[in-house]
């Protein structure tokens, strides 16, 4: 347990010292602010089609943080130390995912509040959008761990990560868009919770298997 706590603390500290959530949130807000400009001034159109677009922006913002996630550990030898530590690699990867979610996923979910309002979402729907994105970013991070691990040895692997990971982003986006559009909110939230749990359970296992191969 102590090893996991140490790994979580260190990863969180490294993510904060690297600028933390500032860049992803800036990207997220910037992308959502472009939507009204592209859609034109018609409010009814924006109100019906706008809110689900926070999900696209959030998915891309998480995607942008994945490239260096394990690549740095592979290059500087930290991965070797993780492999011989007393904690299983799967759990150390889970700790890193948890740190990424706290550093990036949660702030993104909170930033989705103002973004959704700007996209003409009704005020009473904003809290569920925040909750749904908190679950959704957890699912993104879980799938992202596996994608980042598979491409850790590839220079400029950002595009490759996107190709691998984006199909796994589809389910949370489908149900997240339902929440943001105000349809079947309870059912969609439960499915999002399921996506988050599945990604948190399977992502680290897949990522650890890929990292063991990368260490060769």
């Amino acid at each position, binding site marked *: 347990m102590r090893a996991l*706590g140490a*790994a979580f603390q260190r990863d969180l500290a490294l993510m904060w010292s690297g600028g933390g959530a500032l860049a992803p949130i800036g990207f997220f807000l910037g992308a959502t602010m472009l939507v009204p400009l592209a859609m034109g001034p018609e409010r009814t159109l924006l109100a019906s089609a706008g809110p689900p677009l926070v999900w696209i922006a959030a998915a891309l913002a998480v995607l942008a943080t994945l490239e260096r996630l394990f690549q740095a550990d592979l290059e*500087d030898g930290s991965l070797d130390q993780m492999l*011989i530590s*007393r*904690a299983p690699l799967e759990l150390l990867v889970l700790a890193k995912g948890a740190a990424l979610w706290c550093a990036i996923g949660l702030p993104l979910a909170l930033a989705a509040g103002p973004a959704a309002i700007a996209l003409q979402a009704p005020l009473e729907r904003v809290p569920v959008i925040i909750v749904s994105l908190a679950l959704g970013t957890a699912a993104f991070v879980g799938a992202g761990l596996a994608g980042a691990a598979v491409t850790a040895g590839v220079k400029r692997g950002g595009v490759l990560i996107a190709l691998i990971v984006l199909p796994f982003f589809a389910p949370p986006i489908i149900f997240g868009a339902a929440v943001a559009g105000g349809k079947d909110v309870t059912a969609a939230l439960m499915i999002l919770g399921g996506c988050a749990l599945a990604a948190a359970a399977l992502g680290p296992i897949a990522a650890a298997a890929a990292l063991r191969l990368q260490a*060769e």
Partner: protein
Amino acid sequence: MNARRPFQDKPTIRVEGLTLVRGGRRLFAPISFAAGPGEYVELLGANGSGKTSLLRAIAGFLHPRAGSAHIERCEEPSLALHYVGHANGLKGQASVRAHLKYWAGLFGGAPSEDFVVKALNLARVLDAPCRTLSQGQARRLALARLIIAPRPVWLLDEPASALDYQGRAVVGELVEGHRAQGGLVLAAVHEPLGPKPSQTLRLAA
């Protein structure tokens, strides 16, 4: 060195008919050897002869094409070894102190920061981010892992690289101290570290 307890284990490295392949090329003729507690084994060989790969195979990172490499007679396999490779395992943004704390958590260590810092002469840079360290200081910090948490087997890949005269002496003392406690050290070196090796392995194709 009194902060460390002697090992309950009688660590043994057993390598049998080991063949390693990198990039389709066989690195060295099949090699077999065994080393037990209290031994210091020096691993010699030209650049590219496979010293690092042999160490990584024993650590379990690299899978052999044929033969086997094992660490035996350690009660807790996950607490068997330290590996200090070419890459020091440091993060540029994090401070020396943050690394010591992280490793203590990761490997389950206890010795006081004071002792680690004094032994490796890192007191002046304790709060500095690692990107500001010199090569030698970064190497010293990587070697701090050996002191932070006790492990019966040490796999060292050119441990003295980038170290000054005093640093080499410290590495020599660490190795001697580890042997005296029944530990096992396998080090790939280009120049002798100082302590008299109990075995010398020479890798050749």
